[in-house]
């Protein structure tokens, strides 16, 4: 009584299916396009431009976009904005990704531990999460930034320190509900270790919400870097970041608006791109959205 194993899928939450949904999501594709475009531009761009992003030429200050080879103009020190924009993009996006990796990893571990063990472990871990959450993130950022030397790596760490809690909460909730699913009990029945169950069985099944949170964290990190710069605790000159470019442009709004418009658009584009991707992923992983 062998049954052929070819009956088509009837449901649920699987990577290929989510991927298919994602690629059917116009906004998500647009977001992906934007992010890819920006990434490529920032990586390749510097090689295509005749200027070094740090080279100061006071004679060429405040050149508007399109002046000679300065396609996006120059800044108050006569540096090429395009060159700076691409370098800054590398820095800002690197910060975004670094924050994503650190925050996601930390949040996932905390979340899975407290979701799986519950009881006192969860009580302690989730109180820590609550404590971090009850510092408004900008407060925490500034308090930390005031005391640590703000290089890109440190900024990434600081932003990550204020971003992991959401992941932890998401993972905790997800794991708590997955924990009661039969396949986890099945794994326990097979005598698999707690670590195996947590990281091989539970975590991969929470990957959907984690990925969604991760993309949104990238978006938020890029914005937060800009906020820290705006409030004067950002990355040190002369290293450019989108945030400190925008911040330095404030006082020239009337005189040289392109100084602010260029990085402003870059930030908005990048953040929008990641937000679109996150939104697309959310829909793709949401089992409900496919209807039935």
């Amino acid at each position, binding site marked *: 009584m062998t049954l052929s194993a070819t009956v088509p899928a009837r449901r649920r939450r699987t990577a290929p299916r989510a991927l298919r949904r994602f690629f059917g999501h116009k906004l998500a594709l647009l977001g992906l396009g934007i992010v890819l475009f920006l990434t490529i531009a920032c990586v390749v761009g510097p090689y295509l431009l005749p200027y070094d992003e740090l080279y100061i030429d006071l004679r060429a200050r405040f050149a508007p976009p399109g002046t000679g080879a300065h396609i996006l103009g120059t800044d108050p020190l006569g540096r090429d904005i395009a060159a700076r924009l691409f370098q800054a993009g590398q820095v800002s996006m690197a910060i975004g990704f670094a924050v994503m990796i650190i925050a996601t990893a930390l949040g996932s571990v905390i979340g899975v531990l407290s979701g799986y063990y519950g009881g006192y472990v969860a009580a302690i871990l989730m109180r820590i999460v609550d404590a971090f959450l009850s510092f408004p993130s900008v407060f925490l950022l500034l308090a930390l930034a005031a005391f640590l030397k703000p290089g890109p790596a440190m900024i990434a760490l600081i932003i990550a320190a204020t971003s992991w809690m959401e992941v932890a909460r998401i993972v905790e909730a997800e794991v708590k509900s997955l924990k009661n699913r039969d396949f986890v009990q099945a794994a326990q029945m097979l005598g698999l270790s707690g670590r195996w169950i947590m990281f091989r069985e539970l975590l991969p099944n929470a990957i959907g919400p984690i990925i969604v949170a991760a993309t949104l964290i990238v978006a938020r990190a890029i914005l937060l870097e*800009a906020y820290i710069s705006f409030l004067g605790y950002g990355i040190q000159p002369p290293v450019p970041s989108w945030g400190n470019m925008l911040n330095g442009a404030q006082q020239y709004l009337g005189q040289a608006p392109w100084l602010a418009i260029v990085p402003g658009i870059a930030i908005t584009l990048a953040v929008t791109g990641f937000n679109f991707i996150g939104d697309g992923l959310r829909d793709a992983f949401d089992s409900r959205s496919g209807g039935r």
Partner: protein
Amino acid sequence: MLRYLLSRLGQSAILLLIVSCVGFCVLSLAPGGPLSQFALSPGMTQEQLTRIADQMGLNRPLPVQYMDWLSHLLRGDWGVSYRDGQPVLAIIQRHLFATLLLMGTSTAIAIVLGSAIGIASAVRRGGIFDHTMTVMSMVALSIPTFWFGLVAIYVFSLNLGWLPSGGMYAVGNGSLADYLHHLIMPALVLALVDVAIWSRYMRTSTLNVVHQDFVRTARAKGLTRRRVLMKHILGNSLVPMITLAGLQLPVILGGALVTETVFTWPGMGRLFLDSLGYSDYPVVMGLLMASALLVVVGSLAADLIVALIDPRIRLN
């Protein structure tokens, strides 16, 4: 219910203790200090600075300082500011009013407008309105607030001259109309982000509800779409939003910080920034405690409201 409240309060107390301890250590161990602002004054000497530090008790061991601060706090004494000698509690109360005015207005706008947009998008999921709003809210969420604020000032204050460029009221005026006049721009700038957030959450929350069976039941009863929406969908999709609003509080506070700076709004965010800049520990600690307290109260209030609305939770 009372037991529940007591237990929540107990947990909150522990939470506040952790926050205060961590906050105090981070602040006090950091380089710099409240006296550095005087260092550049003509005639100031290190000797003099040390003398002042001694008088202010800043040279005592950290645990002693913390316990001293804590014991005063427990007796309701939040200390006095290093900068102007005012009681911290009074300072915070004054700034809290400004922040709540700004936040309250923008949150009210956000709740009404955001909920309406969210529901409308969810009910006609995939329609033109939904797509437009999705794109718009994503973009709104992606624009740095300060950038948007500066552009708004540039346009509405400098070029058009319609609105004041900052402040909460014109000194010596302070009429309701004057407050409103000053409130419009910062509240709208802040609300832009809030509306975007709320409409997204509301959309998700509503989508979770519209597919539930009881909505089908309501329609099967012969109710109009409008009544189904107002009576069955709205209530149920608002429940998770209330919890979210409680959790959202620190985010809103943080957002207000930037907006307050751009519009010179004398709220908690500005106070925090200034106090941090001057290492005014009592005020910074007071603000930390106040915001942690707000968070605790916010989430407790959210839970209580949910319990009031949702009988399932009320009776557990």
